[in-house]
């Protein structure tokens, strides 16, 4: 069963976080380590980080399908920062990975405990038999 683990940034409008270099490095090392661990366990389908929310554009089709782009809305509370798609044997395993990612180190090495949204990815039709 495949799951998407979506990591949301806490607030919109924030660019590069103003962390100490040591903290940033620990955070990056943690994320690289997590991806490597998932690759080695044979569970990683894909993982991507997204550019910062202040670089995002909101697109919608206007009259005659003309493309209208706009900056993001500052009142938005959360933005997708990145995601993992994993192929695991149980939902509990997906939750465990999400919890691990959530506790990535932040300033001073303290766990960030970021909210990670876990959703099952829709697959083919299940069996008629079971």
């Amino acid at each position: 069963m495949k799951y998407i683990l979506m990591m949301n940034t806490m607030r919109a409008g924030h660019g590069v976080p103003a962390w100490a270099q040591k903290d940033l490095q620990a955070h990056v090392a943690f994320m690289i380590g997590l991806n490597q661990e998932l690759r080695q366990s044979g569970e990683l389908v894909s993982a991507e980080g997204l550019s910062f929310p202040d670089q995002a554009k909101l697109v919608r089709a206007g009259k005659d399908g003309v493309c209208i782009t706009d900056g993001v809305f500052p009142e938005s509370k959360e933005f997708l920062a990145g995601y993992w798609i994993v192929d695991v044997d149980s939902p509990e395993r997906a939750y465990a990975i999400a919890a691990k990612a959530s506790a990535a180190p932040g300033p001073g090495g303290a766990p960030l405990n970021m909210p990670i949204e876990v959703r099952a990815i829709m697959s083919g039709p299940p069996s008629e038999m079971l």
Partner: protein
Amino acid sequence: MTKPWDVTSEHLLRELAPQVLGAVARRFRDFSSAEDAVQEAMIAAFTQWPREGVPENPRGWLIQVASRRMTDLVRSEIARRQRETTVARDVEIMEPSVDIESDMDPDDTLILLFMCCHPALTSSSAIAMTLRAVGGLTTTEIANAFLVPEATMAQRISRAKQSIKTSGVPFRLPSAHERAERLPVVLHVLYLIFNEGYASSIGAHLQRLDLAREAIRLTRCAKALLPGDAEVAGLLALMLLTDARRAARTGPHEELIPLNKQDRTLWDRTEISEGIEHLTAALSKGSVGLYQLQAAVAAVHDEAARTEDTDWPQILALYELLKRVSPSPMVTLNHAIAAAMVHGPSKGLELLETLDTDDRLAGHYRLDAVRAHLLEMVGDCESAIKHYRIAASRTTSIPEQNYLMTQAARLAEK
């Protein structure tokens, strides 16, 4: 002398894969490396044979290529150890002898099947191992079938081999007692491969390897190796009797068509009669199990020319037996449907109540889908709509979701 490559060649190559692996693993006493070496020999064959023709002795060809690879591996391993210990030792390199073919044992495929369906492995690892070592499929093919990157699948296989190694299982046929104990795991893995294939055999995934056909091939092979086992035959029958309905299961827009609305003229008669033949032979052996009973239910459906001809009392009797032989909430659910068809929907709804407190089925879409269907039958449209919608939000299958939403919409417009 070579023979031209044709449709039977790939089949032959896949049949040979576990036999060659058995011989090489026994000779070199290293299952994990032998498995890699045979995989490379298979890839070499798949590249060369279609172009250059099938060698006169395909088995010998594969053994030679795999053994050469093994010798290389052994050599580099010795070199590595010598570098590490800086002690030059005389280690005799095992050269593949010409008579390695005499090492082949008809039971090798069976040994491998038990090894790959090892109880220490998670089902996804066991499936991958079985498809590669017993099925002779390449890592790329398996990765594509499960829609994961090749590197992920390769890693899954390598970890599975590590687990098998740590478990210390020797490369030999388990004792009769052990076999009886572990056969259910083997059958379950084959069943899951079939299920994965059957569940995903819809439009968008046409380019994927046909896992349902592969599962049928492997189960046929298991049945030939265990001719006395009624459950292997029962599983093969179940697969054939289910696969027979494949063409009728989806409409022109890939929408799911439930059993009672299928165009039964599209069912594959050849598969049905073969399935019934296996089932009849299995049932005569006297030890009735889970797969034979499920196959028997499938056979009752397949034998009805029209939905209204379905022998529901017989299906109900079969589910009553299943409840005793192999009780599970899914069996109870199906039993409730059969009871509703025989004694009316109220009886079915009453039986469903026992499942509301069962944690194993809590939140499962099928409970809501069945309840919705029975509520519709008793004429409680309001509640039926509600449960169709709950079921739709809980399934992880898009065709199933579309079907359930459509049912709710149809009732709402009444």
